[in-house]
């Protein structure tokens, strides 16, 4: 690879240059195979191609410039971390991706081998020094969503500056009280870190920006429900993934433009696939960049993905924060309420997720649902049974898949997915 103009910056961030070059090369190849090879993509996707090609370059440069100007950077792993507050404190929030096997062996020295790939990956990325986002963070926010993460943050916290938020596991009044106090604790931590006070004015703005981003993604999700599907599932997944680290205002604008193009396409009844293509919805664990394995297999098997019931998908965009609050207190309450609606599998009981999945599948006119759990992920593996039951009652076929980031099961996955596609066609 030619010497990158960003090399000096990466060196400053203390990345392992050689390992990082290796990662970029794999990423580039993956991207070419999985994304650029698609036929009939929208012009608007060039924005994403550019963002992704510069994911470790220009965006990191922007972040470094912002840091040099005094801004703080917050990293997160979960959609529970309220970005509204982060923006109100004039900090930048990035989702740390953790979607590839890297530094796995090293990570297995700190966490048990039967830990999900996502956890191993975020630890591995840190240990292998290949993630410029992780290296740019002034603070990383963990959350006590599952036991795997909860315990992993104890080890991870020795490597990076951390703050762990306690996410409740039920949705009673006392749980809401706990969550609100956690949001306030995060607010204090942010204010201390940035030296900025969160005021009604900047919090209102923060809520607005993040809601706008959600609205743009909601619009996208509504448009893709058209028959024939106007955009591939891979592209929408990528858009969702990019939403976690690009500047939110720029992102919202670009997605707006893309949606305009989609509307034109829909009017002309143009699809990325023929009308008869089986439509599948993915549901389950988050798919962090560059975990594109399953969507790629699905769309390579003659189906199109029309929705992601996932944290990198509708779980992150379905609900908005009420914008009517005037005081900081009112807005914190609104934020609290909005986040308590998240139907993560870590909650017990979590029946709203079952309803949401069935409703979503119907709205998207999906012919079937693929439930995706990362191996060793207890919460989602458990819910797979319930989801299947709920979907069966709604007469929607479901295929349950448990996998990780490795390619060793790709052939078997293909057979299963293809058989499922045959079954629903």
């Amino acid at each position, binding site marked *: 690879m030619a010497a990158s103009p960003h090399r000096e910056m990466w060196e400053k961030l203390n990345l392992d240059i050689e390992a990082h070059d290796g990662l970029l090369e794999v990423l580039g190849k993956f991207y070419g195979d999985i994304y650029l090879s698609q036929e009939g993509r929208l012009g608007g996707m060039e924005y994403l191609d550019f963002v992704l090609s510069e994911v470790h370059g220009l965006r990191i440069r922007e972040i470094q410039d912002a840091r040099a100007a005094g801004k703080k950077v917050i990293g997160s792993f979960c959609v529970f971390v309220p970005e509204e507050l982060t923006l109100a404190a004039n900090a930048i929030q990035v989702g740390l991706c953790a979607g590839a096997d890297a530094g796995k062996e090293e990570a297995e020295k700190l966490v048990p081998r039967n830990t999900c790939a996502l956890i191993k990956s975020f630890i591995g990325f840190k240990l292998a020094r290949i993630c410029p986002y992780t290296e740019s963070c002034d603070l990383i926010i963990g959350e006590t969503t599952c036991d795997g993460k909860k315990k992993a943050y104890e080890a991870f916290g020795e490597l990076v500056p951390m703050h762990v938020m306690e996410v409740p596991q039920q949705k009673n009044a006392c749980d809401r009280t706990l969550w609100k106090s956690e949001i306030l604790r995060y607010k204090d931590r942010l204010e201390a870190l940035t030296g900025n006070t969160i005021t009604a004015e900047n919090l209102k703005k923060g809520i607005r920006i993040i809601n706008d981003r959600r609205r743009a993604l909601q619009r996208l999700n509504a448009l893709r429900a058209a028959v024939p599907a106007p955009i591939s599932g891979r592209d929408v997944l990528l858009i969702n993934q990019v939403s976690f680290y690009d500047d939110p205002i720029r992102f919202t604008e670009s997605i707006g433009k893309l949606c305009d193009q989609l509307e034109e396409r829909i009017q002309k009844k143009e699809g990325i696939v023929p009308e008869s293509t089986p439509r599948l919805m993915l549901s389950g664990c988050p798919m962090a960049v560059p975990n594109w394995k399953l969507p790629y297999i699905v769309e390579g098997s003659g189906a199109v993905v029309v929705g992601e019931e996932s944290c990198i998908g509708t779980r992150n965009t379905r609900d908005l924060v009420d914008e009517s609050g005037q005081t900081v207190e009112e807005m914190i309450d609104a934020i609290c309420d909005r986040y308590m609606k998240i139907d993560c599998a870590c909650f017990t009981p979590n029946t709203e997720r079952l309803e949401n999945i069935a409703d979503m599948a119907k709205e998207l006119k999906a012919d079937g649902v693929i439930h995706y759990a990362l191996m060793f992920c207890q919460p989602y593996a458990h819910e797979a049974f319930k989801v299947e039951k709920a979907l069966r009652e709604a007469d929607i*076929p479901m295929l349950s898949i*448990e996998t990780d980031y490795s390619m*060793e*099961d790709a*052939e*078997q996955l293909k*057979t*299963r997915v*293809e*058989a499922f596609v*045959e*079954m629903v066609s």
Partner: protein
Amino acid sequence: MIAGIDIGSRSVELVVTDGEKIIRQAKAATTFDPLSQVKKLLGELRPERIVGTGYGRNLLADADLGTEVTTITEIKAYALGTHRLFPAARTVLDIGGQDTKAISLTNTGKVARFEMNDRCAAGTGKFLEHVASVFQIPVETFGDYALEGDEVLSINSMCTVFAETEATSLMAQGQRPQNIALGLHASVVRRTANMLRRVGLEFPLVFAGGVARNRCVIRLMQDALSGEPLIPEEPDMVGAYGAALHGSRL
């Protein structure tokens, strides 16, 4: 003339149909060059269409066979083949070389649900082949050998390698080898019975795939499921037959 070709991990099967009739059935080892095997099986035949199935199906799609090639999964192929042979069948079990599949069928023969083993070979033909080789008995007669057992010894490990270790240590304890063999067969049956229950086992159940030739597995399966599986005359041809049937509908 339509050819259905099933490229499995261990063997390649060919079924050629002409209208309703089967005009050729043949089988060969997969080897490292499955395509040459396919060509050998086809010989002079020039079918107007080839439908490939099995884990090697994409090899066919990419090869230049001078005929149109389509592919379907072995799940669909087994469902189609079974439904034609046994129209009343509601469940299909296929134990092949490396994969085990349980398929539940609707009353019109469509796939309603299916399960497949994941990365590991426990409970598949490969497992039996491996343990048979430890006993130095050809896998074809290993089932009969096990039927000479009079006590089902328990083998707890599902893993091929560890099951072998368990078998060896039972041998060292002086257990009758036939009983150990019986125990190994029972472990295969335990695993497949669970898979069948997960797809909602309903009878008639058709047991296909190469392992359906193993009389011991059949016997133990009857006991485990309290019901009699139906065995096709050529159990390992069902996939290739289903593929050919698919071809005749295109």
